[in-house]
């Protein structure tokens, strides 16, 4: 399989990106990015977690369905290769949940077999009705991942959030986790999420946001910026629906100006170019696709004008 991304950017690309960033600043397209994007290593796109300023790569990885492969050794080894490419290309945030079957076990299997995992930002979830069961469930997930502690623990789909957030706050104080958050998906329970964001101290929220599902722009994303809450975007491809719908169309001629060389980068860069979005977590079980996804971690991001153009282009198809 041809690797279409250079292993390290050359001088020409560096100067081109520098020129692009300068142009953005001069044309007023930069403000949406200036506070959020600080290219690490000179080229990889990262954003700051508002509560601490810690930088994380803007492209992470989800594991819903894709890593739930049970005991199959061949499939586990294949997913380990996916992980290896993810880390090799600068990935950090990996998101999982007890709801995802054997995904945590498969992650643990893979993480044990890869040397270069120091950039791992482990994000798991608690998903149980009974608050009392939360600690055991989280400990079970930690054991399956094989990590000493989770970077981020989230209340999955707001299930029993009041009790679990109390537990997570205590865990954070004791250093068992570094960040806490809550999640929703599919555009559900946004009103409740908004109430929680206003009333609870949160480091992260996770919600569905992509180029077609933009409801979160109305209230939740501005609120996240206002409250200093990092945002993880799930369902960046609407479970492949965006590809099914658009991939047989050509990319627009100006896609390169948006920083996109393929549809994956087009979709992902739209998402992470929103000033409130910290990270997107596409999931994949395909090696070519993980390479495409990680391509969105580099280059430049579209500004507000370009984002509008991207939406209009898709709406015209």
């Amino acid at each position, binding site marked *: 399989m041809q690797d279409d991304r250079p292993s390290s950017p050359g001088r020409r690309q560096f100067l081109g990106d520098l020129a692009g960033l300068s142009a953005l600043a001069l044309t007023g397209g930069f403000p949406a990015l200036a506070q959020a994007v600080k290219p690490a290593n000179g080229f990889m796109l990262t954003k700051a977690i508002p509560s601490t300023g810690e930088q994380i790569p803007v492209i992470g990885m989800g594991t819903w369905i894709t890593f739930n*492969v*049970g005991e*199959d050794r061949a499939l586990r080894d294949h997913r380990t290769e996916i992980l290896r490419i993810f880390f090799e290309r600068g990935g950090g945030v990996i998101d999982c949940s*007890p709801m995802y*079957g054997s995904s945590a076990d498969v992650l643990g299997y893979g993480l044990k077999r890869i040397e270069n995992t120091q950039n791992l930002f482990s994000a798991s979830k608690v998903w149980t009705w009974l608050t009392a069961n939360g600690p055991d469930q989280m400990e079970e997930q930690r054991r399956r991942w094989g990590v000493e502690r989770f970077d981020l623990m989230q209340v999955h789909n707001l299930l029993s959030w009041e009790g679990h957030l109390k537990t997570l706050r205590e865990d954070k104080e004791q250093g068992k986790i570094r960040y806490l958050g809550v999640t929703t998906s599919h555009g559900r329970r946004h009103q409740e999420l908004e109430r929680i964001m206003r009333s609870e101290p949160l480091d992260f929220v996770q919600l569905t946001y992509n180029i077609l599902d933009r409801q979160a722009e109305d209230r939740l994303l501005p609120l996240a910026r206002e409250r200093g809450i990092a945002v993880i975007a799930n369902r960046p491809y609407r479970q492949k629906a965006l590809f099914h719908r658009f991939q047989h169309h050509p990319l627009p001629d100006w896609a390169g100006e948006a920083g996109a060389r393929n549809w994956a980068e087009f979709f992902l860069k739209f998402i992470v170019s929103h000033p409130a979005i910290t990270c997107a977590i596409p999931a994949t079980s395909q090696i070519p696709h993980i390479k495409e996804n990680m391509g969105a971690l580099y280059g430049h991001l579209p500004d507000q004008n370009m984002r509008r153009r991207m939406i209009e282009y898709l709406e015209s198809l």
Partner: protein
Amino acid sequence: MELPYTAEVLASFVAHYHAAIWPVQIIAVFLVLAALYGAFRPNPARDRLIGLILSTFWVWTGYVFYIREFSSISFLAPVYGGFFLVQAALIVGFSVIRHDLQFRYTKDGKGRVGLACLVLALIVYPLAVGIFEEQWASLRLVGITPIPTVLFTLALLLMADARLFRKLILTVIPLLFLLSALITGLMLTGSPIQFLA
């Protein structure tokens, strides 16, 4: 709604499941043959035995297949397992304790439909899935995997003499399950051939 696993993973799971429970498959085959013998050579004493065999199938599939094993792949597995255990209890209640069911093959409409279901459970469905999945290690077998067990039970219930109300009660869970399996199969593959195991 999305399933937490793919068709490929399901096939792999069933193959691993068979390896894990071997040689229970042999016992299951003997129990199937015993149930068929009882149904085609009717005898009041054998009615309770058939009921016991069927309830054993439902207990095994509900607990071992779903709750113990499949829950590692699917968070819905315990729900299915629970329903299978309820069905096992119903069969024990109506067939073993109360002897409300007399299993016998008769050459009438219900007998022929029951026979067709038997062929579906024992031959057609396992063959179809094996061809679709391109492997036999994940063979679907009556007594230890869900859909053939459900079809086999429906077949024997169709052939049984019993009050209609009691037969209806015993068919609710199997029919709901088959509907669920159809939906699951379509979600997994877009094809009606591949059902949930």
